[in-house]
């Protein structure tokens, strides 16, 4: 059955299977925060989708949701039900209303699932469940105390290991030139390192200064917002580190000697921590000196050339102007010509 239902306004809608979404998310160890960040909605919205309060959502959001869950759209669509008459309210309005309505408060990531995958689709209140027989263990205080002690000890051990693992589990470091000439592309590298032994997914977001334009990404980034430019990568770290790089350039009319600020954060899929900030260099000054000329002396010396290659040379496919840098290095120097907006190489 086709679960797609266009709205009167022409926006395609689909019926989603909240229980299946929750099951897939939990099986993959994804938090609501992670999924919400990938889709671009709040955790409240994810919670509502899973609880089938708004089973009829925009197809565009369903595609993003499937991407976040690392699955196909068909896997999260409710094929057994016709398109529900309830339509998803506009996101901002619904957020505002729901915040004032206790019955629709967001579900915490660890909240119990509403529906089990194979359970009948019922919303019978808990009171209708038959009373469970009291466990025999409750009548044995000694055994209960021993088990409690064991549980506390296990929990303490688990906490200890997690605390140790979490100390430096993920870190992100940005390398950025100190200056760049307006209109000339410069490279930025963000290295994400981890002490985690198993692969995990992450979202890296990088916010560029207002007059800075991205040009190329390795791996390719996803634009999320345009003013200011926010770049987003959804990736998986399989080894000890991952490298995310991009080229950017200041607008040609950018004022010289003005400083720009870069900010970024990493969200790890299995971590409820909202975001780990990207550390390292975060400012860049508009300058007539080439970005590889780190001491701004009008030439690129051996150490500056080696620094460029060690920092950015290993990134295949990132075209940061190696040829021109080598030409300047092999020559006596260079100077910026503001009229032609290019470097003149001094032989």
């Amino acid at each position, binding site marked *: 059955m086709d679960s797609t239902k266009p709205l009167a306004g022409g926006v395609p809608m689909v019926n989603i299977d909240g229980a299946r979404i929750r099951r897939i998310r939990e099986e993959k160890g994804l938090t609501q925060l992670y999924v919400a960040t990938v889709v671009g909605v709040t955790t409240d919205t994810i919670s509502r989708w899973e609880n089938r309060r708004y089973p009829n959502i925009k197809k565009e959001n369903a595609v993003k949701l499937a991407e976040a869950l690392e699955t196909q759209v068909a896997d999260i669509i409710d094929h057994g039900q016709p398109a529900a008459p309830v339509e998803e309210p506009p996101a901002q309005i619904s957020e505002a209303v729901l915040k004032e309505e206790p019955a629709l408060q967001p579900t915490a990531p660890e909240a119990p699932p509403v529906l089990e995958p194979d359970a009948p689709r019922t919303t019978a209140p808990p009171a209708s469940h038959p009373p469970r027989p009291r466990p025999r263990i409750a009548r044995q205080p000694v055994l209960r105390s021993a088990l409690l002690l064991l549980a506390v000890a296990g929990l303490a051990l688990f906490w*200890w290991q997690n605390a140790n693992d979490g100390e430096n589990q993920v870190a992100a470091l940005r390398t950025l030139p100190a200056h760049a000439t307006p209109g000339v592309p410069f490279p930025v590298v963000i290295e994400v390192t981890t002490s985690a032994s198993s692969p995990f997914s992450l979202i890296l977001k990088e916010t560029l200064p207002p007059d800075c334009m991205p040009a190329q990404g390795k791996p390719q980034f996803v634009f999320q917002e345009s003013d200011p430019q926010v770049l987003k990568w959804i990736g998986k770290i399989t080894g000890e580190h991952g490298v995310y790089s991009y080229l950017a350039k200041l607008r040609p009319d950018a004022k010289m000697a003005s400083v720009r600020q870069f900010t970024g954060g990493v969200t790890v899929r299995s971590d409820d921590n909202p975001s780990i900030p990207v550390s390292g260099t975060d400012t860049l000054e508009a300058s007539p000196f080439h970005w590889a000329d780190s001491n701004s002396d009008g030439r690129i010396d*051996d*150490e500056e*050339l*080696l*620094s460029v*290659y*060690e920092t950015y*040379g*290993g990134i295949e496919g990132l075209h940061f102007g190696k040829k021109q840098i*080598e030409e300047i*290095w*092999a020559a006596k120097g260079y100077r910026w010509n503001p009229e032609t907006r290019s470097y003149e190489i001094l032989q």
Partner: protein
Amino acid sequence: MTAEKIHARAMGLFFLALLLLLSLPGNLLAGAALVSGQYLSGAGQDIQLRITVASPSPTTLIVIQNLPIGTMIEAATPSFNQYDANKGEVKWLLTKVSPGSYMVTLRLQRAVASGAISGEIRYKEPASGRMINLPIRP
């Protein structure tokens, strides 16, 4: 975990680290031997310099060959990137370097005497980012 156990664990880790440190080869501790150079021919008309790179290798090397001022070069393998005849300085930029051996050769118009030339290899140490200037003598 008690403070004594933490101390015991810390001491254990300390001695383990010390043991590992002591078991490392001396040249690795000294930060040398990642890159080395040796003249196979350091005089005459043909100059041959062999460069050996160990792991973890730097990605890029700059090789400098100092010649007597005014020396004319007939051929170079690989082609050099810079030659300042006034200083007698030839420079190569070797990129995408991996562990192994590399040969740099020059054929000069006139023979040079032994001891009249010298070389240098410059690179960034991958682990520390430190600039290394390695002088080479025939």
